[in-house]
């Protein structure tokens, strides 16, 4: 059975099949869904933890995997200090565990690989954008995307081995890899100029501060405000 409900469907159990350490404080949890669900690149799932006394805690996490396989999802989770859910997922969850999830959710910050897209991510904001990049590569439409990700240092870059094609660039703000052509520094207009594609929708994802400054840069370069879609990551643990 396959569901296709933009409203998030119902809660279901998912089994963790693989855990990958992306960076020192980010892990990707691959989960097999008990109810396969079609999704779009950019959507997210909610994870709900239940204590023996019935207490629950839930948080939303973007799906990083391309949407081609309705049977499984990759959720990349940043471990936040004191984060009730993220610390549990990082410290307790092992392969074989069952977690309650709900999704996919969100009908706005999504891309279907049919129109040009400029992807601008800050730190963990790369996750929904990676779903879009992976979709573009799988469907042979890398020409439709340009992506830049801003991270502090090389060890903070998620999915580092996938930043290989000419459609991706990394802007390091504090420390660069050895002999990296771009000096360390904040994302600037000159980083974005080569990314602009005619009639593209821009997808900006990161902290509120990053999202606002990246949006301002894009508008300054002529990207229409109504063609900028923003997803802000709040400090939700």
């Amino acid at each position, binding site marked *: 059975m396959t569901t296709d*409900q*933009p*409203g*998030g*469907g*119902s*809660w279901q159990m998912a089994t963790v099949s693989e855990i990958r350490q992306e960076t020192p404080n980010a892990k990707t949890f691959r989960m097999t869904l008990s109810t396969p669900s079609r999704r779009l690149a950019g959507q997210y799932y909610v994870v*709900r*933890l*239940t*204590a*023996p*006394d*019935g*207490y*629950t*805690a*839930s*948080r*939303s996490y973007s799906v990083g995997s391309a949407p081609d396989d309705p049977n499984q999802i990759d959720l990349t989770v940043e471990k936040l200090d004191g984060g*009730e859910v993220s610390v*549990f997922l990082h410290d*307790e*969850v092992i392969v074989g*565990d*069952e*977690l*309650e999830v*709900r999704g996919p*959710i*969100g*009908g*706005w*910050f999504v891309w279907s690989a049919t129109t040009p897209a400029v992807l601008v991510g800050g730190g963990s904001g790369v996750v929904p954008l990676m779903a879009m990049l992976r979709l573009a590569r799988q469907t042979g439409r890398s020409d439709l995307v340009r992506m830049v990700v801003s991270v502090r240092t090389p060890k903070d870059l998620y999915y580092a081995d996938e930043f290989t094609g000419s459609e991706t660039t990394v802007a390091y703000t504090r420390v660069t890899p050895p002999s990296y052509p771009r000096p360390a520094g904040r994302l600037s207009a000159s980083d974005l100029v080569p990314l602009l594609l005619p009639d593209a929708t821009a997808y900006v994802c990161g902290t*509120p501060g990053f999202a*606002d400054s990246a*949006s*301002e840069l894009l*508008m300054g370069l002529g990207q229409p*405000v*109504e063609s*900028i*879609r*923003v*997803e*802000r990551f*709040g*400090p*939700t643990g």
Partner: protein
Amino acid sequence: MAKPTRGFLGRGKAARDPRLPPGQYDAGDQWPVLNAEVTPHLDLATWSFSVEGLVEHPTTWNWEEIHALPVSAYSGDIHCVTTWSKLGVNFSGVSVDTLLDAAGLKSTASYVLAFCHTGYTTNLPLADVTGGRAWVVWDYGNAPLPIEHGGPARLLVPHLYFWKSAKWVAGLRVLDHDEPGFWERNGYHDRGDPWLEQRYQGD
């Protein structure tokens, strides 16, 4: 109730603040910022708020005119669908009752669609924005509402999830039918009562 998650003990139901609806946590001093569009920089000289649609006198207020209306304040809690809540917050502005009374509702009025300077919209039953349950606010604490939280002015409907409290609100369109807004067309619930966990379509 779902089967307990292996190894998860939680923070204990007993210690839980009764002001928190199910599935919510206390964000404490934090106030996460979550909006889907670019943060707009609105000029107070050209700012306006309108009540239109099924009203006797469609009315538009500028920044000075809306401040001349009786001040109304809210002290209490707010709840975001992304599961954070903020407890004991204070906003002030004007009651939506005052604005609707000035425009005069027609007898068929039953819903409103709030619209914003950014193009964002959200739908609400009339009963949820009348009777002292909704405001247009411009002060948070004792200071102007910060831009990232909807300043210069936002809608405040604190008994519903906070996406209903539209940031950078520009007006209310009074309707005789329910017309889904931005998030409601994108998977979120039409009403959004946090005590009933009406988060997504179908809840």
